């Protein structure tokens, strides 16, 4: 545990925290999510990246006005203690649901592919404890883990050569044969995989070089976008439109096309390796949730971290009816993400209103 300076995140930490927050479960299902675009889907990651980069702008602007406060504290400052706390509770709830969604999605994948005969309760508990272990070291530990997660998984992009060799490169031609609704639907479903960069609202005060944070965060977004784009491009080349819209985890089928002489079915290994990406997202969300609980409590304690774990366990393994699950994990998370993006803009307005009012009072 590093208990050094308050501002402890250097440029690489920022880049890979952004990357770790975004890349997680989404990359496995991305070609399926964007399938309404057909063969033009490789355009979507570029547009997603652009939108995310634009959305980043008001966030950094807001945070630069409060260089020592995270969003939980900014909420209470701008909205007053009561309303601020209510919003904080909502954000904490969002973090917990998003975290449950990531772990639940990954463990479902594990159960269907790697361990069909095992209960997922064990891996779930271990993953939760491991995330708690990482989060206990503070945001810097999360960032360092995200860097490791990136480098341990990013090299798999090398294997995209097999699908490209085996596929039909003509699919890649930009024909623009899609409607506006196709695009909006793909954008909406794809934005799931894009969420995660907005957590910078919460770790911004720990960044050392806050003036250049926007640049570093943008680099983080575009590194992730390049990976997304590579995945989409190789699936466009490899799959047919029907396959893309019917395969739940197209990336696994992409990996199945890899042919090596000494091992077969390497996707088994890659699914397991994916735990690094899942964990870096999960750790960041867990860090967010425990910060939220600390901001709600009157006397913040470090135990709030362990308080989150049973809630997430119950969210995933508890007796929740299926339709509520769909609502929680498919609707609430994405609209929560939109809300956080908009919330930064709303708060920025509130901030300017408050500033001009205070300016008038002073004059």
């Amino acid at each position, binding site marked *: 545990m*590093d208990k050094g300076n308050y501002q402890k995140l250097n440029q*690489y930490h920022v880049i890979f925290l952004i990357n770790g927050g975004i890349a997680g479960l989404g990359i496995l299902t991305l070609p399926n999510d964007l399938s309404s675009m057909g063969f033009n889907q490789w355009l979507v990651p570029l547009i997603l990246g652009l939108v995310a980069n634009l959305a980043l702008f008001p966030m950094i602007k807001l945070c630069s006005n409060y260089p020592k406060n995270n969003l939980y504290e900014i909420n209470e400052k701008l909205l007053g203690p009561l309303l601020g706390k209510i919003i904080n509770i909502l954000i904490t709830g969002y973090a917990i649901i998003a975290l449950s969604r990531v772990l639940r999605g990954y463990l479902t994948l594990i159960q269907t592919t790697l361990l069909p005969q095992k209960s997922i309760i064990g*891996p779930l508990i271990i993953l939760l404890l*491991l995330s708690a272990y*990482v989060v206990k*070291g503070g945001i810097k530990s999360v960032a360092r883990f995200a860097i490791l997660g990136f480098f341990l998984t990013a090299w798999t992009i090398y294997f995209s050569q097999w699908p490209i060799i085996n596929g039909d490169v003509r699919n890649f031609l930009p024909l623009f044969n899609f409607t506006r609704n196709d695009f909006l639907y793909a954008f909406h479903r794809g934005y799931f995989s894009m969420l995660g960069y907005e957590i910078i609202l919460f770790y911004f005060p720990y960044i050392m070089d806050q003036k250049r944070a926007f640049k570093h965060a943008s680099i983080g977004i575009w590194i992730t976008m390049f990976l997304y784009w590579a995945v989409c491009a190789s699936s466009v080349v490899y799959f047919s439109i029907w396959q893309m819209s019917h395969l739940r985890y197209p990336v696994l089928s992409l990996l199945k096309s890899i042919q090596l002489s*000494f091992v*077969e079915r390497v996707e*088994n290994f890659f699914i*397991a390796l994916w735990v690094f990406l899942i964990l870096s997202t999960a750790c960041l969300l867990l860090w967010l949730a425990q910060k939220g609980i600390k901001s709600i409590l009157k006397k913040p304690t470090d135990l709030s971290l362990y308080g989150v774990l049973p809630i997430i366990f119950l969210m995933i393994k508890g007796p929740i009816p299926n339709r509520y699950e769909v609502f929680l994990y498919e609707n609430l998370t994405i609209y929560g993400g939109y809300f956080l993006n908009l919330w930064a803009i709303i708060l920025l307005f509130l901030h300017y209103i408050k500033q001009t009012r205070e300016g008038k009072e002073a004059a």
Partner: protein
Amino acid sequence: MWFRGWINNIANNKKTSLQEESFNPNAKGEVSKEAIVAYLQDVDDALIKDISVGKGSATIVYIKSLVKMEILQELVITPLNTFENQDDPEEVLKISEKLAFDELPKLIEGVMSGLCIIIFYDRKSIYTIDTFSPPVRNLTSSESESTVLGPQEAFIEALESNFSLIKKRIRNPNLKTKVLLLGTETRNSVGVLYIRGIANQENVQRVLYRLRNIEFMGFGGTAVLKQMLEDKPYSPFPQFGITQRVDAAVSALLDGRIVIFLNGSPEAAICPTSFFEMFVSPEDYYNRWTTASLLRSLRFFGFFATIMLTPLYVSVLTYHPEVLPSTLLSLLMESRTKVPFPPVIEVLIIELVIEVLREAGARMPTKIGQTIGIVGGIVIGTAAVDAGLASNILIVLVAISALLSFLPPNFLMSNGSRFIRYFFILAAALYGFLGQMIALAWLLAHLANLTSLGSPYMTPVIPRSATDLLDSVLRAPINFFIKRKGISRSKKELTRPTDEE
């Protein structure tokens, strides 16, 4: 941690206080022969004798086992014989120091550290002469860190010899040697070496602060002292380097590290040290850079191979047989046809057998050690396969991973890798590939959280300063080394001028 409080509670229930019984050299006490005799009661190798000096008389006190007769003769007896009632005994005892008459505990401490003490009652003065000359082992080469090239002499169990081994290589007044007395009972000397201007002063202060705050009866060796200084004592990995080699200590000093010696222990602790440096041998710098790079990558990736190889066997056979091509799978299955255990039990048995062999070899007298190798390697290995207790392939894998675990030059890191391998085997048995990856994630998260003297122990791929990459798995040619390592946080970064000045 909660159990530390629990242990303290148990200790406090027994009503003993450390302070009451231990010896405090800074207390006051009147010197008299009776008092000295009382202190040194039952210390039968102490010599307390009245002698006549010139026309007066004096008392001489020393410990026979700490003082050689020749030294005593040369430094004390011969000068005293020339003493004929001059004004001051200091005229003949030139290198002596004076003690006051109320410093009895200090006198006793001096006696116990090998000083010879002469008390002149009629002059009311006490003189101490450093006659400390215990038996010292000869300089030999290090057995645990042997290299083909390079200086062969290694540290020995005497602090002064170790200092001189370093100082004859670094003739620089900036090489500072702080000596502290540590251990509430032993009061043994601990030396802290660093080069002022190169070592980070913050690090030096931190080491001295930690050393001064240790309250413990005494240390069996540097490794014990090192564990009390380390940032995370619960971790299975060493956070400070430890070496017996002089060249390793010298290059660490030149890089801005701090070297800690304990008198009576032939090892030096080097701090701060990074995870990667546990895999670096001084011989890497004597080899050509190509060979050194090859060997370093073997050692570094060997660490990950040794903790992954046998777990891979377990998880492939238990959960994912489909990853193997059919030829390899049939080979594996044929060799396992007679084995009556699940893979994890089989692996655990053979791993434990290897560990038992290693431990037996280490504890046994050297002459029997070779026999053990033959018994273990041939008899147990072949017989186990013939009896159907283990598969051929497993024996190969276990042997390879055992060999790989001995690659790190740091003995503690090599032990650590063998310990955590069992966790990987169990994780593989529980959840296959996923278990292995979770265990690896846990290992990396743990390593990323460790610190060595407050500096991060491991950098996650991106180095602390870009020049560190030139001395990492790739060992660049020597003229590429222009900066000290990032982990030293040295104020003087450059090791040579970079332009023509």
